[in-house]
C-alpha cells in the first residue's frame, strides 16, 4: 500500500455527517462564554456583574479573583529560550491589565451559549484605557510600553553568525540593501477552538475533549494547573476542523478554565469559540520587517549576507521564539550564503499574540531570500534561475552543515535534496525558457504578464520523538495508536498503509487512533510537518516488532522456522507451501495464542486456556522477557530534522487599469522524500498553495492605531475562495531522507512557504516595479505604479 493513492479511511464518517467535532459533543453540558477586552491596552478598574445575576439559566460568573491555586498563575511559557530574556504570558482571566482586544476578562457559565452571552452582555467592566502599541514601528520606537517591565518592548534579541558577514559584504565587488515587509495573517481553520470537560467526582478524574494539535501536552498542562495527578486527567482530540498551527498553542486560557469550572461546578462544561473570538483571542503570524545587506561577486554568488529583522510577537510569548528562529535559519533556503549573520528583535505589541501558522516563519524568510536573489539577478542582468543555480548547495555536498542552530536547538544540517534537479524539473514544467516569447507576445497585445519563482527548504519532522502502539486483537483486527493528533491530514489512512505493508494485513482490518491520551500517553504533537516522519517511522518500527512476535508464535504453532514464514492477507503461512490449512494460521489466532488464559469468556479465549493450548509443562506460560498479547510499542527519535524542499513558479497577469493580479499558472516541484500516499501529499500541497496565494494577495490583519482589529470577520478578512485559487500543477522529485526508516520528509507546510515570494517575483516581472512588501492588494499595486511613473517620468 506504501506509495499508492489509497482513498482515505477518514472520509466515510466525515462525508455522511457522522464526524465528531468538538461542538458535536456534550449536548448535556453547560456552556461558557467570555467577556473580552474591547481595548488593546487598559487597566481594569472595576467589574460589575449585578445586572447579570437575575438571568434565568445563569450558573456561574468567574473573574480572576475566583481563580484558586495554580489557575491564578500566569499561563506557562511553553518554549523557554536563553535569549528570550523578557518572556511574558497571560493569565487565564486578566489580572488588572489587558494587553490586546479579545483578552478574556470574565467567564460566564450558563445553561446554553445563548444565555451565557446574555450574561456577558450585562456585565459591566470599567477600564482605564492606556496607549496602545501597534505594529513593529511603534514597538521598536517604544514611546509606549506593552508591559511596564519590558524595556523597549523587546522580548528577545538573538544573533547567529558564521563569521564577520558585515565585513564580507563590505569587501564584496557588488552590494545591495533591501527593506522588506510581510503582513500579519493567521491560520484561520474553519473550526475554531473548543473545549469540553467532564469531571467525575466519584472517580476524582477529568475527561477533556479539546480541539488541539497536542492532547498529551494539554493533559500534562491541565493536571499541573488544576493540581491533579496526571493519571486523573485524560484528554481526547475529537475530529478537528483544521489547525494549521494555531491549535498547537496550549493550554489556552479556556483549556484551563473550562476543566476548572467543570470540577468546581461538578457538571460538564463546554466552550465553543466563535469566529470573532478566533480573530481576536487566538493567535496570528507572519508580521516582520527585514533589513538586508548582501554582497556578491560578478557571477552573482553570495559572499556575505547580513539580515536584521523585527518580529511582531503580539502581546505574549507562550510559544517562545520558534517563529523568528525558524525565519532566521530557514531564510537560507537551498543556498550557500557566504558569511551569514542574522539578528532579530522580537517585539511586544498590543495585539493578538503570534505563534506558528503553517510555514511558521518560513514564508517570511523565503520571501526575503528570494527577493535578494531576484535583486541580484536584476543588478547583474542575469536570468533569475541562473543566479539561484550558482548559489545552490550541490547534491554532492549533502549532508550540508550551515553552522547554525535550528529551532530544535540542533545543528542546521540538511540531510538530502538535489536542488539543481528540482529547478530543472520546474523550468520544464512551467516552460521557463520559452516564457520570454510569451511575455513579448502579451506585451504586443497590450497585456502584462510575468513569471516568477521561489525556492525553499523546510526543516520537517523535528523531534524529540513520537511513538506507536500496535495490537492484534483475537478477531484479527489490528488497532494502531499514536499520540499526536490529526486535523484533516489523513494520518489514519497514511499510518494504516504503513501497517498494512509491515504486518501483511488488509487496510480494512486496521483501525488507527490519534490524539487520545487514553490510548497513548507519550507524544509531542502535530506541527512542523512531522507526522509522517515521526509517527510514520514509529508505527512502522512498532509493526515490525509485532510482526516478529507474530512470526515467533506462529512458527511454534506451525512447527516451522520463522525464516520460512510470511504474512499474507492477515494469514501467517509457510512460504511456497501452497498455503494449505495446516501450514497457515491467521493473525487473530496468533493473538489468541499470545495470551495464555485461565478463563474462557468466548470461543477465542477457550482456545487459549491452560488446558487448550499445548505447552511445555516445565516452562512458564509467559517466558522471561515476554509479555502476553500480540502487541508492541516503539518510539522513533531522530538525531535531527529532515529537510524537505521545493520550488514554485507562477505566471501572473496584471490588469493595466485596475491593477488586479490574476494567476494564470501555478507550478510546484516538491521533494518530500519517499511518498507514502501521493494523493494525500498533493492535497497538502494544494491547500498550502491556496494559503500562500491568500498570504500574497488577500490576507492581512488590519489593526488600527488603537489596536482594534478592523476586519475580524470572514466578510472582511479575505481568505481565497475557489475563484481566487488557480489550478495547481505538481511534479515530484524524490530524494529519500537517510535519517528515518521510511525515507520520508514532511509535506504538511511546504505548499504555503514560497507563495508570497514567487508571486512577488512574477508581479515584479510583469510590472517592472520592485516589490518589497506582501501581501499586495490591487490598490497598493496601483499606488506603486503611480509612484514608479512619477519617478521615471520626472528624473531630477
Amino acid at each position, binding site marked *: 500500500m506504501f506509495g499508492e493513492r489509497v*482513498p482515505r479511511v477518514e472520509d466515510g464518517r466525515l462525508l455522511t455527517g457522522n464526524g465528531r467535532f468538538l461542538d458535536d459533543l456534550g449536548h448535556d453540558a453547560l456552556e461558557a462564554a467570555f467577556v473580552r477586552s474591547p481595548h488593546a491596552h487598559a487597566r481594569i478598574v472595576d467589574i460589575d456583574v449585578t445586572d447579570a445575576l437575575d438571568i434565568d439559566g445563569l450558573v456561574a460568573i468567574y473573574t480572576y479573583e475566583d481563580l484558586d491555586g495554580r489557575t491564578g498563575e500566569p499561563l506557562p511559557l511553553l518554549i523557554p529560550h536563553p535569549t528570550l530574556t523578557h518572556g511574558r504570558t497571560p493569565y487565564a482571566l486578566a489580572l488588572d491589565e489587558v494587553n490586546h482586544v479579545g483578552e478574556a476578562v470574565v467567564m460566564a457559565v450558563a445553561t446554553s451559549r445563548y444565555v451565557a452571552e446574555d450574561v456577558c452582555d450585562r456585565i459591566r467592566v470599567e477600564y482605564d484605557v492606556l496607549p496602545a502599541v501597534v505594529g513593529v514601528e511603534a514597538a521598536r520606537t517604544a514611546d509606549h510600553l506593552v508591559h511596564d517591565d519590558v524595556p523597549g518592548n523587546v522580548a528577545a534579541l538573538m544573533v547567529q553568525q558564521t563569521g564577520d558577514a558585515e565585513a564580507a559584504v563590505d569587501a564584496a565587488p557588488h552590494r545591495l540593501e533591501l527593506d522588506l515587509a510581510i503582513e500579519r495573517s493567521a491560520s484561520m*481553520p474553519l473550526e475554531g477552538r473548543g473545549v469540553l470537560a467532564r469531571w467525575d467526582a466519584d472517580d476524582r478524574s477529568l475527561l477533556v475533549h479539546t480541539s488541539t494539535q497536542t492532547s498529551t501536552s494539554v493533559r500534562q498542562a491541565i493536571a499541573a494547573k488544576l493540581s491533579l495527578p496526571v493519571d486523573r486527567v485524560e484528554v481526547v482530540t475529537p475530529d478537528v476542523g483544521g489547525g494549521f498551527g494555531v491549535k498547537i498553542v496550549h493550554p489556552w486560557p479556556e483549556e484551563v478554565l473550562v476543566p476548572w469550572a467543570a470540577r468546581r461546578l461538578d457538571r460538564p462544561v463546554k466552550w465553543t469559540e466563535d469566529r470573532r473570538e478566533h480573530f481576536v483571542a487566538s493567535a496570528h503570524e507572519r508580521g516582520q520587517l527585514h533589513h538586508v545587506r548582501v554582497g556578491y561577486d560578478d557571477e552573482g554568488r553570495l559572499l556575505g549576507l547580513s539580515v536584521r529583522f523585527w518580529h511582531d510577537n503580539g502581546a505574549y510569548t507562550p510559544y517562545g521564539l520558534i517563529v523568528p528562529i525558524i525565519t532566521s535559519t530557514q531564510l537560507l533556503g537551498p543556498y550557500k550564503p557566504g558569511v551569514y549573520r542574522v539578528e532579530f528583535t522580537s517585539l511586544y505589541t498590543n495585539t493578538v499574540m503570534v505563534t506558528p501558522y503553517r510555514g511558521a516563519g518560513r514564508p517570511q524568510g523565503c520571501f526575503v531570500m528570494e527577493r535578494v536573489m531576484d535583486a541580484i539577478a536584476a543588478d547583474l542582468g542575469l536570468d533569475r534561475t541562473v543566479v539561484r543555480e550558482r548559489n545552490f548547495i550541490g547534491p554532492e555536498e549533502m549532508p550540508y552543515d550551515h553552522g547554525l542552530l535550528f529551532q530544535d536547538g540542533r545543528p542546521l544540517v540538511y540531510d538530502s535534496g538535489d536542488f539543481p534537479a528540482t529547478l530543472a524539473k520546474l523550468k520544464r514544467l512551467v516552460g521557463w525558457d520559452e516564457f520570454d516569447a510569451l511575455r513579448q507576445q502579451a506585451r504586443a497585445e497590450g497585456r502584462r504578464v510575468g513569471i516568477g519563482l521561489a525556492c525553499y527548504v523546510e526543516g520537517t519532522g523535528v523531534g524529540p520523538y513520537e511513538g506507536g502502539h500496535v495490537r492484534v486483537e483475537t478477531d484479527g483486527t489490528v488497532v494502531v495508536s499514536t499520540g499526536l493528533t490529526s486535523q484533516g491530514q489523513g494520518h489514519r489512512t497514511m499510518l494504516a498503509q504503513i501497517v498494512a505493508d509491515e504486518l501483511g494485513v488488509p487496510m480494512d482490518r486496521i483501525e488507527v487512533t490519534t490524539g487520545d491520551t487514553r490510548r497513548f500517553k507519550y507524544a509531542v504533537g502535530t506541527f512542523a510537518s512531522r507526522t509522517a516522519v515521526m509517527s510514520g517511522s514509529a508505527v512502522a518500527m512498532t509493526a515490525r516488532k509485532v510482526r516478529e512476535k507474530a512470526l515467533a508464535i506462529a512458527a511454534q504453532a506451525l512447527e516451522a522456522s520463522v525464516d520460512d514464514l510470511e504474512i499474507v492477507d492477515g494469514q501467517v503461512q509457510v512460504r511456497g507451501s501452497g498455503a494449505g490449512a495446516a501450514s497457515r494460521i491467521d493473525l487473530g489466532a496468533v493473538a489468541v495464542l499470545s495470551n495464555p488464559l485461565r478463563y474462557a469468556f468466548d470461543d477465542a479465549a477457550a482456545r487459549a486456556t491452560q488446558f487448550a493450548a499445548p505447552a511445555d509443562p516445565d516452562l512458564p506460560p509467559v517466558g522471561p522477557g515476554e509479555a502476553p498479547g500480540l502487541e508492541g510499542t516503539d518510539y522513533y527519535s531522530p538525531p535531527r530534522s529532515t529537510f524537505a524542499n521545493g520550488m514554485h513558479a507562477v505566471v501572473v497577469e496584471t490588469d493595466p487599469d485596475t491593477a488586479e493580479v490574476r494567476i494564470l499558472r501555478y507550478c510546484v516541484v516538491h521533494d518530500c522524500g519517499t511518498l507514502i500516499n501521493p494523493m494525500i501529499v498533493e492535497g497538502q500541497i494544494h491547500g498550502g498553495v491556496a494559503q500562500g496565494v491568500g498570504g500574497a494577495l488577500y490576507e492581512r490583519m488590519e489593526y488600527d492605531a488603537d489596536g482594534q482589529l478592523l476586519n475580524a470577520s470572514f466578510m472582511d478578512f479575505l481568505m481565497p475562495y475557489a475563484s481566487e485559487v488557480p489550478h495547481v500543477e505538481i511534479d515530484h522529485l524524490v530524494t529519500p531522507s537517510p535519517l528515518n526508516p521510511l525515507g520520508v520528509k514532511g509535506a504538511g507546510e511546504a505548499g504555503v512557504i514560497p507563495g508570497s515570494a514567487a508571486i512577488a517575483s512574477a508581479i515584479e516581472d510583469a510590472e517592472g516595479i520592485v516589490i518589497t512588501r506582501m501581501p499586495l492588494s490591487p490598490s497598493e499595486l496601483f499606488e506603486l505604479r503611480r509612484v514608479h511613473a512619477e519617478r521615471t517620468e520626472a528624473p531630477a
Partner: protein
Amino acid sequence: MTQADATVRVSFTVNGSPHDLDLPPRRLLSDALRHDLRLTGTHVGCEHGVCGACTVLVDGLPMRSCLLFAVSLDGSAITTIEGCCSSDGGMGPVQQAFHECHALQCGFCTPGFVTTVTAYLETNPAPTAEEAREAISGNLCRCTGYQNIVAAVCRAAELLAPASPGETVAPSQTGGADS
C-alpha cells in the same frame, strides 16, 4: 429572560422526517438542527453567512442555516448532509465523488459543499470544470485549495448522469440520483 425563553411552535421536515419543535424565536436553524435534533453534520464556521459550512437545502435551495431563525422555517422541507446519503445510509453520489477525488481533508466545511453541489447539479447536471469552480466559489475551505472539490463536482455529475448503454459508472456506485 422571559422574552428570550418564550417559545414558538415550528413544524418542518428534516431529511423527510417531520418535526414539531418549541423553540425560542432567536434559535438559529443551525443550532436547532445541531443541538435540538442532534444532526451535527451541519457545521458552523463563521456565524455570519460567509463560509457556507452550515449550508442546508430549504425546499431544495441552498441556504445558510446560521442566518436563519428556525421558527421562520415553518412548513419547509430541509435537507442536511445526513439527507444526502444513499438510502442505505452510505455515501450518496456527491459524497462518493468527494471521496474518490480526495475533495476533503478536515471535513469541517465539507457538508456545506456537499449540499451546495447537490443543489447545483440539479440546475446544471453537466458542468464544465470552470462552471464547477464557479458553483463552489461561495463556500470557504481552508484545507484543500479547492482543486479536488472542482474535480469532485465534475465526478459527481458523472455519477448522477443516467448511465448510457455500455457505460459503467463506478464499481462502488449503486446508481441513482435519489439522494
